[in-house]
């Protein structure tokens, strides 16, 4: 039995959602469930699960410093905690803990500060010393000459989720509430009359709608251009890797504090890991070897035993890198067009809250207080949310 109908596009809907990734499907689900709007089409240019919802490293967490990020991602984590009951679908939420390692006194202070900020925001956090980390993960290279491991900041409620099940679960839930999920339907134009959206043009004909919601991170600039919008976003490529399967070894999410590297083990046994974006504009969905080498060097510096494993697969996904490293969820200058974009490489963990907040924004034509800080016009007003303090340079976030 199919989990959702293979719907044919109808000529008109109340809301058209462009992009059938995790965020688009979650938006449709919460619009139907929370706001009673079910005359919705989700338009996906390829098939459900073909984009970043099936390409990420499946990590969920809310270990943020900035208040706007902490509140938003904590709401997301709370929604993850109830998602399987809500959807009646097994998305394999596993709160195995996320441990950020630190390697110097200065980094310990910075992590203690972040942990304190998290606890002030009612988010779980604990600072582990070296002995405690040794007990949890005895095979790490604690005495590395350059980057010895001194301890870590642990968020026990963080973890992993089976990513494509999230797409399937939201798709099924939305479909059952009457949403049309239309695959192989690419938007090629957006119709605007006197500053107001009236519909979209697709490779399967014109679809009219008073509200059009853009959820196409990776390609946000391309789609927004159809509505005459120029976004504070660059598209970059991010690579991820999975090894051959081994017996249970890494029972939590571990991040290396001296480079950019994070690793967890999938339920199939493969070690899933990634690092930085390649660092240049790209729509290629594949990266280059110097980044592969840098990721492997980080892996070896943290967990030398990994050198005995073979990498089974490696792939790339497109990242909407925003100018302040934070997402955009909100209204646009074109009436009836709503924007959900700029997820950098943190979109997966945000999926439930992103959909929940975006649905609110679309239904009420105003942002919820959780996503109000993530407005598009913050770049003009100076209210940027720069968690890393890197400035308007997307490849540094």
């Amino acid at each position, binding site marked *: 039995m199919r989990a959702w109908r293979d719907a044919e596009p109808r000529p008109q809907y109340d809301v058209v959602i462009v992009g059938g990734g995790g965020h688009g499907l979650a938006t449709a689900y919460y619009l139907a469930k929370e706001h009673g709007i079910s005359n919705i089409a989700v338009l996906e240019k390829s098939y459900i699960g073909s984009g970043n919802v099936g390409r990420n490293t499946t990590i969920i967490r809310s270990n943020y410093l900035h208040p706007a990020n902490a509140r938003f991602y904590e709401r997301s984590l709370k929604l993850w905690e109830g998602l399987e009951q809500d959807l009646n679908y097994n998305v394999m939420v596993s709160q195995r803990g996320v441990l950020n390692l630190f390697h110097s006194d200065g980094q310990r202070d910075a992590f203690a500060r972040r942990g304190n900020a998290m606890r002030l925001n009612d988010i779980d956090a604990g600072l582990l010393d070296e002995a405690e980390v040794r007990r949890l993960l005895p095979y790490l290279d604690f005495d590395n000459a350059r980057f010895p491991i001194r301890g870590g900041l642990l968020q026990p409620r963080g973890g992993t989720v089976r990513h494509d099940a999230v797409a399937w679960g939201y798709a099924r839930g939305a479909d059952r509430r009457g949403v049309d999920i239309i695959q192989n339907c690419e938007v090629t134009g957006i119709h605007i009359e006197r500053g107001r959206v009236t519909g979209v043009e697709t490779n399967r004909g014109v679809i009219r709608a008073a509200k059009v919601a853009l959820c196409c991170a990776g390609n946000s600039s*391309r789609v927004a251009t159809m509505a005459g919008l120029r*976004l*504070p976003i660059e598209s970059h490529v991010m690579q991820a890797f999975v090894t051959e399967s081994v017996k249970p070894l890494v029972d939590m999410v571990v991040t290396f504090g001296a480079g950019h590297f994070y690793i967890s083990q999938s339920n199939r046994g493969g070690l899933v890991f990634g690092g930085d974006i390649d660092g240049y*504009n790209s729509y290629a969905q594949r990266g*280059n070897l110097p980044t592969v080498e840098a990721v492997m060097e980080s892996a070896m510096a943290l967990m030398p035993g990994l050198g005995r494993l073979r990498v089974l697969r490696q792939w790339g996904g497109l990242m909407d890198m925003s100018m302040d490293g934070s997402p955009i969820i909100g209204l646009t200058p074109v009436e009836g067009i709503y924007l959900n974009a700029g997820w950098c490489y943190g979109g997966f963990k945000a999926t439930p809250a992103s959909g929940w907040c975006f649905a609110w924004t679309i239904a009420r034509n105003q942002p919820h207080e959780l996503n109000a800080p993530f407005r598009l016009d913050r770049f003009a007003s100076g209210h940027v949310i720069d968690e890393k303090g890197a400035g308007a340079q997307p*490849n540094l976030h």
Partner: protein
Amino acid sequence: MRIHCPYCGERGVEEYSYRGDATVRRPDANGPDALERFVEYLHLRDNPAGSHQEFWQHLHGCRAWLVVQRDVRTHAIESVVAASRRVAR
């Protein structure tokens, strides 16, 4: 990805550092619409899926700044000129 430096020849991308879109221009700070122009200059990008003109620096080589024309769908390099020799517009 390999970039042909006009001074050093073809080198691997790991020798270079990336700055971004080379088509944006710093606006006149004394212009009447300076605030809006600076918001655009600092934050807004065309981000095309196709040929992209961008700044690279041969950081671990001769340190020259280059203007590279590159197809971001395929990573194919179309042209490289030294930023100092770029035709003024």
